[in-house]
Structure formats: C-alpha cells, structure tokens
C-alpha cells in the first residue's frame, strides 16, 4: 500500500484532515488541482467573527501541509478515478498535470509572469483582473512555484510543417516586441523574410479566427517582423546565440530552404558547415524559381546573410556526386538537399523545338537576368500548379500579348494555391481548362502553336481527383510563340543513383532522414518530391537535429519540434471559452494587381505598424500559452520545461477523504441583478478579493470606472434559498461574510455608506450575533426585503428596487455606487466521476451524502470513503474544521479496524 489515506482537495477541510491524520502517524497523499494548496480560504480578506487575517491563519496550515513529513502533496494534479479493490483498499489514478516548469529549480521569482505576453482572466482574483499564461497562483502560494497554462498546441503552430511558433510571434508583435518576434522565427530558420512573403500560410487556414470574421494575418506579421529587423541597425550582425565551434564539419549539398535551414541549425550548434551549391548563386527555388514580384531577391539575400554572418560557408558552382569524397575531405556528415530539379516532360511531338521550354528553366533564366524577349508574343503554359501561375504571370511581365494556362482538369482540381490562380487571372492570364497537349506545332523548327485535346472528368484517381479522359475528335490548335511546360518536377536521380527510388527520390528513414549510408542524410523535396517551403524547412530542421544526434552518438530521436507537440486544441474548445465575440475587421494584405503588368515590383504591400498590431490583436490565444519563449529567456533558474507532459500515477490507499469543497453560485443566472451586464455589480467573492491585502486593485474600487465607491449595497441570498434557480438551501455563511465585508469596508473607506438588503439575518454561531450588532453599531444599514431588480444609470450607478418590509412594505428604489451580490454555494459535481461505476452517494441536492450524519459524520455511502467540509453541504470555516476532525476520526477508526496501516510503504 502506498499511502494510508488519499485526501482530495486542499482547502481548509482537506488541509485540516491531512495534518491531523499525519500528526496521528498516517501517511497521507494530498491531491490538489490548483498549483497551490489553500483552497478558497487563502483568497479571503479576513474571517468572521474574529476578523483575523485569512492569510495569517491559512498560511501556517499551508506550510504545515506541504512540509509535514507524513504528507505527500501533489499540487496541480487531479484524481482521475478511484476503484475499490477486493481487500477493501482503493486504487487511485492520479493525473499530474504538466506544469512546464521544473519546480525543483523554480524560485518563484515571478520573472516568467512579467515576461509573458498572454493575458487571461485571473481566477484567483475572481476574474477582476488579468494574470498571465505563465503564472504563480497568488502571492502567498504554497508551494510558490510557477506554471504555464498550456491547453494544447495552438492550431497555427500545429499546422506549420516547419514547426514555427506562429502563435508566439503573433503574441510578440501584439506586445510590440518586434525584434523578439523576428528572433523567434529565426530560431527555426534563417528564411524569415522569405516565409513572410512566399509561404502559403497553412497556419492561417487553421486559425480559429477563420470561424469568426477571418484569420489573423500570420504570414504578414512575420514579414512585418522581418522587414523591421532588416531595415534596422541590427541587420547583418549575428542575431542569435551560436555555440563555440565543436570541431566537427558537415557538408550540405544544395542551398534551397531545406539545406539553408539545416545549415543554420547545425552552425548554431558549433558545427563547421559548408553549403555546396551547383548554381552560381545560393537559394534554390527561392532565388531561381519564385518570381521577384512575390519574393524580391534582396529579401533572399538578407535571409542568406543570416547564415554567412555566423560563419556558414557557401560554395557555389560546385557539383557533388560522391558523398564518400566529401567524407574523405574531412566532413563528418553530409546532408543532401538538392530538391526537385528535373522538369517532367510532356512526351509529345515537338517538345524539344525552339520555343518550347520547361517552367523551371524559364523561371531560372528570368531570375538570372536571361529572360527571353516576349514582347507581343503569345504564351501557352501547360499545367495547373503554382509554377504554371508563376510562368504565366512572368510572361505577362516580359511583355507577352497573352498568357494562356492549359490545364487538363477543371479549376476546382487545379493544384495551384487558390490565391495564385486568382491573382494570375486578375493579371490577365487566361485559363484553358479540360485540355491536354498532344503536340507542339512547329514550322521551320520554331513553335507556332500547341495542339490540345479536350478532356472530360472521369472517375477519381489515386489522388482523389477525378481523372481527365480524352474526348475523341475534339483536338484543336492554339496558336502561340512559346510553350512553357510545368506539369511536374522530380529530383535529379543522377548524382545519388544508388540511393534513389524509381521516382528519383533519395530513400531515407522518414523520422531520422538517414540514408543507408550512415553519415549521409537527405532532406526536403529530394526525399519527398515537390512540396513547399515550410515542409522543406521542417525537413531541414529534422535533418540537422538527427545529424547532431548521430555525431554525438545519441539515439536518432528527440525531434520534439514536430514529433512531440501537444495535441492541437480544437476551434470549438477555443470558441466555447467566451459567451460572445466582438467583431474585428480582418487585417489582410494589400495586393496590387494590374492587368498585363509590365514590371517585377513586389505586388504585396507590407503591413503598417498599426495594421500589424491590430492584426496580432485579433489572436484568440487558442493554446493559451503562445510558446513565445519569453519566459524561457527570462527565467534566471532555467526552470521552464516546455517538454514536460502529464503523468498518470496509480496509488494504493487504505481510505479516501473527499474534501472537494463547493462551487459558488453563478450570479449571471439571476439576470435581474445585472451581473455580467453592469460592471459595478460584483459578487461577494470579488469584494473579498478587493478587500484582501493582495487585492487586484490598489484599493476598493468599482470595476466600472475605478472610482472609490461611497454607497455600497449588498443583496443577500443571491442564488440560495431561491427555488427559481433550483437551490432552496441556505448557504449558511453568506450573511456573515457580508457582515464581515460591511465592517471591513467601513474600515477601509470611512466615508462609505454600507447597506445590506436581506431576507433573514442568520447569525447562528458563537459570537455571530454580536458581530452583526457590531456592524450595525459601526453604521451599516440592514433593510429587510428582497431586491427585485437592479438597473444601471448613465453614470454607472445602480438603482435597486426592493420591498421595504419593515417600513410598510412599500416598493422603494435606491441608488448605489456599487452592488455586491452575496452569492450562495452549490455542490461541486466533480465528485460524481471520482468513483466510476460505483459512484459516491449524493443527497437530493447533490452534495456528498452522509447516511448517518448525526451519529457518524463524515461517513459516506462507500465504506472507507469519508467526506470533510463543504463537499457534504454548506458550512462556514469553523464548522468545516470541526467536520474535518470528525472525518479524521472516522478514517482512523477505519484504518485501525482493517489493519491497513501496517503495510504502508511510505
């Protein structure tokens, strides 16, 4: 047996039970769902009727709980289920939630919360103010340790094949931390400016804001951060931490996004990295295929300069075909990232005639200053992918009279990104759909046209798209001067033929990217076929990670960037957090499209600073923590552990104490009182927070405008003794906490008038009646009669309508600055699921049943399971402690009767 007793909940009932049992020598496991013990009591201002400081009473008990040698406390954990074993013991399954902070290292200094860029309502301040996603529960927390609130991977991050923390840099831009946003992307890849322009932004497709009015402009925010950086004084200097040289050398063949990213990651780890590029300039398709109107060359230059600034050597005009030779040259490992360089042939007559080119060669020639003269010419582009759109648009910019895109399926099946095809059309490209080339028509060796056959769609093929089928007898000729073939591309199998499959792709282990030659890895499109920039970057990151693991003799695993992300949180879960969403005008890019464009000027304008902040401000913080890494950077103890995960533990125990406390009535269920509609209507718990030394405001202020209130009203029995909300029970302590607050307010705000509207004053406890009288003597006014309605006045004051029972029963209206609803309590239904198939018995009001409350208080319907405190019904603090004592005695009797304790291991 692991523990004698499991105590669930560390409010005053749970702490009292744990301490007493531990003092008796029993081994106690205390499980608390929050990051601190203490429950609600520690959050109160003072306690009645003594007006002792709640912290002063709770604090020592919290400390005793945590430090008692017989108590093991699992904070930030939940009991997932309890089963009773055949011998009378229980097996409890406890889920220890990941805190993402190493509590052994955390000093509770609060640097992480100050650095955090995500603000959320602070449940420990009754949602009156903000806390951060990185937070310490409250100032007196025991243990005083930070946790990160992570509710999953944000969809934008989850959608990124490059593993770039989109939510993080959005959050940083929202906070005005532009350089930090740039650095966060830079941590993944040097191609920040490139991605800000040429990425197809799968993050935006998955953005939860898409389900409202439109996505956060994530890609453009990245561009904004990159432009800010590159235009600033820091541009060109090493922008990121680089390890000392480790003496190992890695060769990377190819300088596209995969190769550049792999080089970046390895160089930062201290490797001597050399990139070997076949062409005369580095960049791969970024430079040689993507036209400048989408991706200016100077942006590619700036991104590549990130690499050279940290010592990466780039050798151009170098062809590699023998990796062994590189090994012989002293390279410890080689990564091949040569992409897809071979254009797929159409295999039609006339394809090799002058005036028939493939798209890759055409675009490369244009990028390298060898653009063909197309003024007044007619161009037909065969294909429907992004390269086809680029070829058509480039043709128009080179002066072509017309650019027709001939595609064998319909627009719906077109593989080009929908934005690319739409923009191409807007610039004047004409789509010839459901046609396939059968011949390039030539005269005198020159292209004069292309013979096309009309197609129709048949059954879906392996890709799920409907297969085009020729329509017999439907051929026709389209006159043109240039045919550009863009029907596909594949890796060049020649240099590494022994490693290539039949499609020319280098065969690798998909998780390690290692080839059959141990020192040789491959990344990007050369392994996967033509994909996109983000996938190539993700592959480059993976290859770099695995090369490092291999060279340091570690197992080829641990690529947490993509392989160990938290489950992506669903949009429905995110949207369910709020009752309503305000409309925000979506911020999107300003793209200038003109028909028949004639220059290569970048077509998309950058966001202004205001647009960037507004766009970032629309982020819904789906995963809560944005993964911006500011806490990681700020923590002096290096305690942040983003790789922590929930852990499940099984414990065998001899008895269980349920001390799960209560819930507070949701005051908005009494709409006539205006909670949630009028900012100056608050709950009793909120007032207790305003009165506490660790209050969320600097004084007792009304939330509507920050004014010190002078006329404060209390409305008792809000949500209790009220059949209209399904709770006929008295909550027992609302009258007294209201009186307590009445006195405290008169102490804190000597000029304030305090009035309580009550039904009955229930002061049944030792010195409670005297406490009530004392409040009256101090000047508090008590009016008998239920408040029927609260309305708000233009200045935020509140008009209470009530029946003045003791003065003739008249309907009276009175104006106040602030109204406090003395909310009652409700059962905590979390206990329902604790015991699975044999649930704990509940009474008719859903509190834990005590079948023999008079004779055996604390006993429940399950032998060996006991209840302490308000889990079994309304009790004030004094009664909770007494009830806990009773439960402790029952537990001890049970354990001694069954002789379980002799076997306790702890």
């Amino acid at each position, binding site marked *: 047996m692991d523990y004698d007793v499991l105590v669930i909940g560390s409010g005053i009932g749970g702490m009292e039970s744990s301490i007493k049992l531990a003092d008796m020598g029993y081994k106690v496991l205390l499980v608390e769902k929050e990051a601190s013990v203490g429950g609600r009591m520690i959050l109160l201002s003072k306690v009645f009727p003594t007006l002792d400081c709640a912290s002063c009473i709770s604090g020592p008990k919290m400390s005793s709980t945590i430090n008692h040698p017989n108590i093991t406390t699992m904070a930030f954990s939940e009991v997932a289920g309890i089963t009773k074993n055949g011998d009378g013991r229980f097996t409890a399954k406890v889920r220890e939630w990941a805190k993402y902070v190493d509590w052994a290292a955390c000093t509770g200094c609060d640097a992480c*919360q*100050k650095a955090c*860029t*995500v*603000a*959320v*309502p602070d449940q420990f301040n009754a*949602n*009156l*103010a*903000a*806390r*951060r996603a990185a937070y310490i529960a409250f100032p007196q927390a025991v243990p005083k340790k930070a946790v990160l609130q992570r509710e999953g991977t944000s969809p934008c991050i989850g959608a990124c094949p490059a593993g770039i923390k989109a939510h993080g840099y959005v*959050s940083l831009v*929202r*906070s*005005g931390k532009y350089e930090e946003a740039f650095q966060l992307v830079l941590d993944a890849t040097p191609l920040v400016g490139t991605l800000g322009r040429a990425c197809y932004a799968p993050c935006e497709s998955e953005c939860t804001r898409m389900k409202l009015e439109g996505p956060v402009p994530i890609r453009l925010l990245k561009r904004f951060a990159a432009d800010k950086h590159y235009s600033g004084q820091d541009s060109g200097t090493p922008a990121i931490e680089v390890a000392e040289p480790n003496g190992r050398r890695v060769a990377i063949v190819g300088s596209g996004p995969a190769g550049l990213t792999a080089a970046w990651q390895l160089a930062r780890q201290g490797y001597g990295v050399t990139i070997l590029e076949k062409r005369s300039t580095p960049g791969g398709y970024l430079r040689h295929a993507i036209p400048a109107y989408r991706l200016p060359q100077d942006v590619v230059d700036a991104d590549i300069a990130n690499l050279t600034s940290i010592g990466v050597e780039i050798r151009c005009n170098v062809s590699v075909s023998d990796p062994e030779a590189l090994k012989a040259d002293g390279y410890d490992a080689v990564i091949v990232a040569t992409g897809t360089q071979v254009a797929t042939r159409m295999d039609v007559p006339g394809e090799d005639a002058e005036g028939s080119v493939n798209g890759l060669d055409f675009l490369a020639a244009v990028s390298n200053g060898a653009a063909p003269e197309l003024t007044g010419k007619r161009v037909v582009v065969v294909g429907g992918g992004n390269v086809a759109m680029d070829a058509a648009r480039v043709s128009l910019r080179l002066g072509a009279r017309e650019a027709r895109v001939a595609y064998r399926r319909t627009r719906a099946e077109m593989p080009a990104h929908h934005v690319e095809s739409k923009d191409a059309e807007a610039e004047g490209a004409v789509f010839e759909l459901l046609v396939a080339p059968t011949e390039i028509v030539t005269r005198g060796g020159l292209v004069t046209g292309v013979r096309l056959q009309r197609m129709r769609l048949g059954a879906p093929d392996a890709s799920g798209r409907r297969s085009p089928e020729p329509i017999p007898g439907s051929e026709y000729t389209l006159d043109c001067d240039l045919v550009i073939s863009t029907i596909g591309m594949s890796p060049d199998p020649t240099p590494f033929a022994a490693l290539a499959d039949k499609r020319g792709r280098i065969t690798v282990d998909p998780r390690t990217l290692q080839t059959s030659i141990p020192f040789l890895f491959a990344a990007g499109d050369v392994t996967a076929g033509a994909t996109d920039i983000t996938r190539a970057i993700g592959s480059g990151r993976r290859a770099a990670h695995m090369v490092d693991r291999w060279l340091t003799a570690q197992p080829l695993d641990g690529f947490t960037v993509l392989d160990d992300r938290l489950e992506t949180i669903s949009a429905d879960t995110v949207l369910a*957090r*709020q*009752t*309503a*969403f*305000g409309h*925000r*005008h979506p911020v999107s890019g300003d793209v200038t499209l003109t028909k028949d464009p004639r220059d290569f000027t970048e077509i998309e304008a950058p966001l202004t*600073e*205001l647009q960037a*902040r*507004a766009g*970032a*401000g629309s*982020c*819904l*913080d789906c995963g809560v923590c944005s993964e911006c890494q500011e806490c990681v950077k700020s923590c002096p103890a290096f305690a942040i552990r983003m790789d922590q995960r929930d852990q499940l533990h099984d414990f065998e125990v001899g008895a269980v104490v349920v001390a799960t406390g209560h819930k507070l009535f949701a005051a908005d269920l009494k709409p006539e009182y205006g909670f*949630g*509609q*009028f*900012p100056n209507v608050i709950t009793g718990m909120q007032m207790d927070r305003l009165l506490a030394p660790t209050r*969320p*405001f*600097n*004084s007792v*202020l009304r*939330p*509507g*405008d*920050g*004014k*010190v*209130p*002078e006329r404060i009203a209390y409305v008792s029995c809000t949500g209790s003794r009220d059949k209209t909300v399904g709770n006929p029970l008295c909550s027992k302590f609302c009258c007294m906490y209201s009186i307590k607050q009445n006195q405290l307010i008169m102490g804190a705000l000597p000029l304030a008038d305090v009035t309580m509207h009550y039904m009955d004053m229930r002061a049944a406890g030792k010195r409670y009646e005297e406490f009530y009288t004392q409040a009256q003597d101090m000047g508090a006014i008590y009016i008998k009669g239920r408040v029927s309605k609260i309305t*708000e*006045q*233009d*200045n*935020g004051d509140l008009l209470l309508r009530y029946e003045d029972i003791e003065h003739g029963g008249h309907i009276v209206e009175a104006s106040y600055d602030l109204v406090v609803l003395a909310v009652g309590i409700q059962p905590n239904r979390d206990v329902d699921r604790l015991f699975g198939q044999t649930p704990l018995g509940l009474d008719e009001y859903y509190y834990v049943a005590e079948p023999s409350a008079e004779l055996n208080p604390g006993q429940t319907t399950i032998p060996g399971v006991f209840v302490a405190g308000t889990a079994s019904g309304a009790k004030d603090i004094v009664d909770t402690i007494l009830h806990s004592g009773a439960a402790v005695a029952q537990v001890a009797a049970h354990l001694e009767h069954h002789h379980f304790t002799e076997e306790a291991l702890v």
Partner: protein
Amino acid sequence: MTQTLRDPREVIREEPLMHDPILRAVASGPATIGEIAERIGHPVHEVVYWVMGMRRYGHLVEGTEADDDGFFSYGAVDQGPAATLEECEYE
C-alpha cells in the same frame, strides 16, 4: 453608461496590445482611468482591466490618494521614451 459588456476574457486578452496606447496616454503625467479611457477611445470599464493588469505587472503605479471625486491617478513606472505610435486606436 448602459452598453453591452464584452466578454472579460476578450477584453483582458487585449491588454498587451493596449500597453503602448495607455503609456502614451500617461506620458505627460498621471491620469485617472476615465481620462485614460477618453484619450485612447475605449470604454472606461475595459480600461480598468488594462490599467490594473499593467499596475500588477509593473508598468503603472497609482498616486497616493484619490481625488475629490474618488478617482486615483496612474502614471508610468518607467518614464522612458513614450510609445512611438501616432495613434492609439487599434480596432
């Protein structure tokens, strides 16, 4: 004052976005929440959330006493350069 209150979570989420406008609003000296709200063009009850969040995390500090109307003034803790944005309205 009667108006539809936005969900507090939505308002609080915007706090980081509002730091610069609020710091600009108090750049020339401490101001009450009502004054800040007027300067940045947002509802005063929303500005309460933002000011209290900024106060909690060390960006703003209150004066020692409320004025005759019962309002405290809040000023920047760090009297460094004012925010550079020309405007404060983001929505």
